[in-house]
């Protein structure tokens, strides 16, 4: 698996849409004929991807939002690697 670079800017893959679903009480990732139910932290990370912000900036935002969470940056990088390997993001 390729490592995520902190200065990279990532976006959802074309045709993929992140959306809050009240009836499921969670974020979902919608794509052609499919839907991935996301846990809360996956939703927080993906909603910050806009193709402009760098991964480092996204981590900063999350650290500000959840101060004192140990290993947050490593968790974000690991999640983004998985998401990219699954072709959810590019």
């Amino acid at each position, binding site marked *: 698996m390729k490592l995520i670079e902190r200065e990279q800017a990532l976006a959802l893959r074309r045709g993929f849409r992140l959306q809050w679903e009240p009836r499921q009480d969670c974020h979902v990732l919608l794509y*052609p004929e499919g839907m991935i139910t996301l846990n809360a932290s996956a939703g927080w990370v993906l909603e910050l991807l806009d193709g402009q912000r760098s991964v480092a900036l996204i981590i900063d935002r999350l650290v500000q939002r959840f101060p004192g969470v140990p290993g947050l940056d490593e968790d974000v990088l690991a999640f983004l690697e998985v998401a990219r390997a699954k072709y959810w993001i590019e």
Partner: protein
Amino acid sequence: MPNTGSNEPRPGPPLWLLAELTYRCPLQCPYCSNPLDFAQQGEELTTEEWIRVFREARAMGAAQLGFSGGEPLVRQDLAVLIEAARGMGYYTNLITSGIGLTEQKVRDFKRAGLDHIQISFQAADEAVNNLLAGSRKAFAQKLAMAQAVKAQGYPMVLNFVTHRHNIDQIAEIIELCLALQADFVELATCQFYGWAELNRAGLLPTREQLQRAERITQVYRQRLEAEGHPCKLIFVTPDYYEERPKTCMNGWANLFLDITPDGTALPCHSARQLPVSFPNVREHSIEHIWNDAFGFNRFRGTAWMKEPCRSCDEKHQDLGGCRCQAYMLTGNAANADPVCSKSPHHGVILQARQEAQAAGQGMVQLTLRNEKASRLIFRG
């Protein structure tokens, strides 16, 4: 998804809404999943009725919406329906043969908010494709439209229904899909419902054909993975070669809601043939239909099961398989799906496999799906 057994007060949401807008279609595919008696169904829902259905299902939690048919492009109000559905927050999928599509429509639908277009092909070979589709111009039109879909920035799924007459061309099919830059490729071995069941002897591939196709697909998957290529190949096997049934629709009325052209609500495309009465959206709300209608609760959970399912330790995995298949092949929808080797009716599956091993029917002997054939089959 929560298991909606008899102790559960309410089923989970109908996450997937399939809108079969019309049974009209310019093609005549002999494996169409539409009912054999489609020519005798009632009047199509109006634009306003469809939009009400979308709103009510969205409020229930539906997030994926498929526009299907028949050929949904036949509906002149398609762009209006797309715009309304997208505005409600649906992920909107157009499931089409590509016949009737134009570059202008591809652009108009994009503007209306359409998220994705799936184009179905009959074969990678022009002559076979056109023979199966019952149309001389189908193939060239599909190629042009697949290119237009990508040019407009849509994600694209290409769907090939495979069977004994095209499955040996699986490599050519995959190559064509890659050349057209498909994001997802569905290699769906024919499922035997509707017209496909009528033509089963002429469609079911042999086990050897199927194994070869799976092997080749696997080689392509490995190659794509090594290249970091995002295209995903989805191979759907026909359950006739399995020893355990599929968990059909992920469970009866569990997450899938199908609305047919005349407004009849079904838990799957082919349930209409069952001796179960199903509600119509012209008479009931989606909430009532999903939660309370008898037809939707008929096979939820496991309480309805007979032996050998009732005492089976695998019953929560496959939920007894497919109710329609049980009905078609055993005469009783509450029986175990005969695909299961524990079913006392499993012999019908073994016999179908043997028939596939024999020469089988040629393509020209298949009954094409059209109004004339539909009326002939249901003369009553």
